[in-house]
């Protein structure tokens, strides 16, 4: 178990440090955040035609309201935690890669819901927006990470020699 935790902490710190370097920000994080903003705007436009995305900003031309997706709101940190947990846990690579792929989708799908709900909460009531943004959604995203990790553990093959929690 100690080995799992040490690997987990080391991997997520390395991934986090890499993610905040200017190279990673320019090549991966900012384009990815713009993609998240574009997908969010596209989903909102299915029922609200006044909405567009401009870079990392989602804007409603009808009301003049806009939100910018910043670090911490693009789901990257939650994906880093999940990837670190899956990589640190002794398991076959096939399961690791499948878990990382499906887990990233699960986190980003919930993150899209978070962005869309915050976009409308902000137009309705800024206090509720702040509360949901700073406190509630952060907990829900991390709960999503934990639940996906538990489900992933549940689908691992039964082989005691490979698993960290039996040590």
């Amino acid at each position, binding site marked *: 178990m100690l080995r799992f935790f040490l690997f987990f902490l080391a991997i997520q710190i390395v991934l*986090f440090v890499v993610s905040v370097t200017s190279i990673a920000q320019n090549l991966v994080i900012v384009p990815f955040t713009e993609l998240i903003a574009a997908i969010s705007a596209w989903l909102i436009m299915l029922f609200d035609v006044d909405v567009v995305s401009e870079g990392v900003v989602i804007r409603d031309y009808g009301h003049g309201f806009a939100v910018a997706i910043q670090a*911490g709101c693009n789901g990257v940190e939650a994906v880093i*935690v999940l990837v670190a947990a899956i990589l640190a846990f002794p398991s076959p690579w096939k399961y690791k890669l499948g878990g990382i792929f499906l887990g990233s989708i699960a986190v980003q799908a919930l993150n899209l819901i978070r962005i869309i709900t915050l976009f409308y909460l902000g137009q309705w009531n800024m206090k509720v927006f702040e509360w949901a943004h700073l406190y509630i959604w952060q907990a829900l995203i991390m709960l999503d990470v*934990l639940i996906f990790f538990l489900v992933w*553990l549940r689908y*691992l*093959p*039964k082989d005691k020699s490979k698993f960290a*929690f039996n040590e």
Partner: protein
Amino acid sequence: MNNRPVLYFFLRVLVWLPITFSIWYYFSIIFTWPIAFAVDGSLPNLFSPVVAEIRQNGYQLTVIGRVYSSSGSVGLLRFDVNTLLYSNCLPLYTALVLASPGGEGQKWLRWLIGLVLLWLVATLSVSLEIMKHFLAEIPGAREILNFPSWAVNGLILSDLYGNLLLPALAPLVIWIALNLDYIKQLAPGLRKEDSC
């Protein structure tokens, strides 16, 4: 016996979350007090040339600092830090503990251990935020405290980690560490006897 233990666990956490968030926010002044106590007891002593005093103001900490002009005169500056940003891991952790099986005493023990650890995490994150404010944003503070530039860069990076990841990550790590037996129930493949 249910055959979807993870789903039922998830639903139990979702039921507890609004309750734990409400209690945490209602009693936020009480939950903030140990953070204020620890930060005020440490930073003004460790960095006395720039950090004068830290006061609890509801769930905010009001930091009073010293700034020095080039002529040598000293002024005071004041800014607030929202401690809820760093202690919002507590409601999630509490919901996880309440949703997990175990006797009342066992749950209280796990919750208290988690509470202490999460307070330490919040204190560290708040301290990093305050020191980043001084060292990276207030001219002259770095020279007065004699911080090399690499140490300031390290502090800014640590503050980012303490802002974006640490408070969110801590409740999951603590809950997993204290609930290994339950995790083995949720994921039967992890149990030794199943593979014999």
